[in-house]
Every structure is written in C-alpha cells, then in structure tokens.
C-alpha cells in the first residue's frame, strides 16, 4: 500500500465512520490531491479563501468534528496560517478549549513549479506553542501521526511531500560502529540522504542515517544521541529553508545534548526559480554527499570540532 492509499484509507474511515469532515479547495477534481482523498461523504469544498477557510475548519473543530484541513501547496500556508496558529494552537492554553484540526500541508518541488508553490514550510509552524509538527514519509509513519491526532486533542501540522505519495516502503535507521558522520534527515531529505549514502560509500565514507518523523515535540532517540557522541559530527538535512529552520533548530538541540558538532543543510537563502538551473529544492544526493565529504575531511584535518 502506498502512502497516498494509506492517507485515503484513513480519511475514508474518518469521514464515513467517525463523523469527521475534510475541508479543502477543489479537492474533488484533478486527481483528488494525488489520490489521497476518497470519494465519500463529509468532504467540504470550500470557496477559494485561504484567509477565512482555515477559520471554517477551526469552527468545525470546536464542534468536535475533528476536521482534516488540506492545503495543496505549503507555500499557501503564508495565507492560511492565521487562524491555525492564532486560534487552533492557542485555544487550549488560553481557554482550555481544544481545537483538534489535522492540517495536511503538502510540499511539492521541481518541474518548474516556482517560488510560491514549492518547498516545505514546516519550520515556521514549530515556532508557535500548541502545535505539534510531524513529517511522515511512509504509510506506518502516517498511521502513527493519525493515531496521535486521535489520542490527543491538539491541532497538528502534518508536513507532507508529494514525492513521497507513491512510497510504500518503511525506513530503518542505519547505524555503524565506525561511522564518520551521523545524518538526521527530514522530509524528502530522507530519500535524498539514502541516495547520498550510496555516493559516500563509494568514497569510503560511512554515514549513520536517522529518519526523523516528529519535529515538535522533538525527542531524539537514544541511539541518535549515542551515534552522535560516537561520530562527533552530525548533519541535519531538510526540505525547508535552513535559516531559522527545522534543520538548524534540531542541530542546536542535538549539539546541546551531545558532544557532536552538528551542521544543518536545508534550502538556500534565495528564491526558487522556475527554470531547473534556478531551482532551490531539497538538497540533492550529490549536494548532501559533497557537504558530508567536506565536513568529514575538515574534521580529519582538525577543523570544525565543537567549541
């Protein structure tokens, strides 16, 4: 079963059997959002309003309908975020009134989709209190996030990525006694890090690879800390911008919890263009490999250790 089919399955059950609601724009057309939306009741086609639309979902959450709110491109979150961060995320702490909205925020990149529709924006949603953030890339991870949503009463920001919709694999962390570096990968950074490892293997560099599902709360696995303490060098790879982004935030946390020097690699601080040579997307396997080679050789030369 692919990730898209898993999302569709979970959604159908919620809408058919749990009295749930799904809000979105043009969801029942053009591929039904990558095949993630079932043809069933309780789908609400809202008008094209990215300012008021999230408020509709917030109101429905206040009425215990546990709505799924779909935003086709994460770039549109600049528009959609106000009631989600300002009401849904705050309400429980201000009024003791939970607002459980499942925010499906879908990342996309490449193929010339340009600066507004491309990239992920999960980092900005780690900022306000009251909003857990997850980045599921596999069917089981998605189920875990969904179950978390049902078992808690918080809203939740789910940073999806179109490129993972066809994925049906689960990923294991990869840890070696004699690794040179520990990579912690997020979003599509995970797929690209897997490819990067192949390039690194050929160059004789061994990299641990950890797949990170939850950005907030961020609770590093014990094995991750242990691995970092062993390699003394880490790299967090992400599909969102690097500056003040999830990659740097997690690198900071990990540096405080380990003896490792942890670096961050996300999108560059420049606008993504349409032409392929102007794109600014998830660091490619080649780019990840190049950075890792540089970091590892710097350490070997005695540079860049943790101060």
């Amino acid at each position, binding site marked *: 079963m692919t990730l898209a089919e898993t999302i569709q399955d979970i959604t159908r059950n919620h809408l058919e059997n749990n009295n749930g*609601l799904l809000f979105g724009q043009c969801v029942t057309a053009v591929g039904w959002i990558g095949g993630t939306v079932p043809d069933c009741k309780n789908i*609400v086609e*809202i*008008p094209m*309003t990215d*300012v*008021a*639309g*999230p*408020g*509709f*979902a*917030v*109101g*429905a*959450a*206040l*009425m215990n*309908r546990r*709505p799924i709110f779909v935003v086709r491109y994460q770039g549109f979150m600049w528009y959609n975020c*106000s*009631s989600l961060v*300002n*009401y849904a995320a*705050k*309400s429980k*702490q*201000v*009024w*003791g*009134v939970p607002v459980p909205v499942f925010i499906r925020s879908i990342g996309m990149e490449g193929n010339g989709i340009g600066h507004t529709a491309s990239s992920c924006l999960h980092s900005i949603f780690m900022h306000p209190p009251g909003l857990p953030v997850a980045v599921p890339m596999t069917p089981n991870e998605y189920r875990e996030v969904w179950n978390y949503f049902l078992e808690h009463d918080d809203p939740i920001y789910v940073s999806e990525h179109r490129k993972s919709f066809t994925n049906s694999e689960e990923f294991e962390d990869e840890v070696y006694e004699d690794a040179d570096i520990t990579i912690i990968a997020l979003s599509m950074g995970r797929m690209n890090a897997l490819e990067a490892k192949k390039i690194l293997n050929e160059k004789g560099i061994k990299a641990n690879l950890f797949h990170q599902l939850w950005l907030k709360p961020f609770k590093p696995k014990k094995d991750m800390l242990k691995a970092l303490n062993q390699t003394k060098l880490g790299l967090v790879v992400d599909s969102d911008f690097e500056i003040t982004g999830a990659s740097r935030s997690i690198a900071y946390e990990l540096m405080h919890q380990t003896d490792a020097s942890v670096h961050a690699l996300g999108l560059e601080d420049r606008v993504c263009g349409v032409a392929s040579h102007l794109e600014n997307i998830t660091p490619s396997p080649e780019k990840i490999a190049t950075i890792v080679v540089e970091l590892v050789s710097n350490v070997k030369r005695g540079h860049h250790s943790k101060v």
Partner: protein
Amino acid sequence: MRSATLGHIPNLPEKFGEEFALELFKRANFNRHFEYKVKEAAEKKLFTIPIYLSIGTEFNAAVFSMMLQGYKIFGQHRCHSIYLSFGGKPEALRDELLGLETGCSRGMSGSNAIQAPEANMFGHSGLMGEQVPIACGAAFASREPCLTICGDASVEEDYIYPSLGWAATEKLPMIFVCEDNDLSILTKVSVRRNWSPANVAASMGIPAVDIADDPWVIAYHLETMKENLPGFLNIRSVRHLWHAGTGVDDVPEWDRYQLTTAAMEKLGLKSKMSVIEDENKERAHAIWADCLED
C-alpha cells in the same frame, strides 16, 4: 445616513410590550452597572490591563440575548455586555480582569478575549474579524445557530467577505452583526471606505439591514431574520468611552441608554424600572465590594 433613528419603525415598544421592555432593561441596566464597577476598579488601578468597555452599547447585547437564546456566540474584543447578557458569570469576568485563576479564562484572556462556556460564548483571539469564519465553521459543522459580532472596522477584514459568501451558499444558520460605532480606534468609517457592509451582505443574497441601535428595531429584524438564516445587521452604535480604558473622547453622538429608558418610561414603567435598577446596583456592588473596598 448615520443617525439615532436610522431604520426607525413606529410603535415597536408598545408592540413588544411591557414584559419585554422590563427584561431588556434588566439586562442592559445590569451591564451598565457592572461596567461602572469595572471602570471604578480600573481607575483605582486594581488592574492595569487594557479594558474594552461596552458603555453605550449595553442594549445591543441585551436584545441579542433575548432574541437569540441558545445561539453560540462568537464576539470580539468589546464584549463584556455580551458575556453578561447571555448569562456569563459576572464573578468570573471580574476575576478574569483581576488576573485570577478563578477568572473565566484563568487570567489568560483579560478583558478582550473572554469566554463563557456556560453561555455558549467562545473566546476571541484578538485578531479582529477572525471570529466570523470560525462562527461559520461552527454553524456548518453543528447545524446549530450561531451569532457573530464584529465592528465597523473588523468587518473590513479579509475574513469577512468569504465568510458571508460561504454562509449564503451553504444557508448557514448564522446571524452576523456589525456593531458600527463609526470608529476603528479613532479613525472614522468615511476615512477608510465608501461601501456599506449591509450592501455587501445583501449582494450575496443575505437578508441585510442597516439600522440604528434601537433595541426594538433590532428585535423586530432578528425575529424575521431568524426564520430565514443567514441574516446580517449593521447596527449604528455609539461607544461612550475610550477604545481601551475609561476616558472620554468626546460628547457621544447619541445616548441610546437615555433614549431607550425614556421610551420605556413612556410605557409607564418608571417605577418598575427603578426597582430593577436598585437590585442591579446592589448586585453589581456586591460582586465588586470586596475588592473595591479593600
């Protein structure tokens, strides 16, 4: 256009009758006496948080609460009278202003973000206008009637027009109120726009009126609108005190409290009103006595 008699309909106080007028008075008069106590407490610096007093619009809240029983309420920052009229606990509002754990939001909301679960009133986050789509979502998801109140300024927010459109399309059980005091803090409507919110609502197929804050005229329209929701009322109102705080900007354009009580007296209710007022004063006094006398 803007006047105390906009949309006037003759003989409504008589049509609604004595009982209605007395209940209306009871609620509005308590709102006023409670707000006087809040003002006194603020002036004595029992709290220094921003407060948004509803003196001047007490009758709006009172008449909504009489006509829209059982509605879920989504107001905005100036909502003490709404809270009290719909049955929010006055002690919990007092404690909220004092920043106490026993406040209606445990001290998290202050004056402008109050909630009253006991009265189906939801908190407002402080983002002007945001309450309107949230109310629409609640009405859609529950199919139960909701009242949402914004101001002449927040009605300009991007949240509003798509909400009206969605409510019209989905036939949502909604009453939209724009409490139009002609001010966004201190900026008048004429400086900000040349369009009328009631016309916008009407253009979307929502029955809409633009009227003064005469509580009987409001009641008259609510009675009709309730039968065919959604509905929209732009209510020309006057705030007597500062946007936030207890000071006075200017002589009020009109004094709805005085106009309404005079009309009630014409119905021969003066002595009954006086008894009610004494009870309300005493009630407000008792609620605030401990902290004000300390």
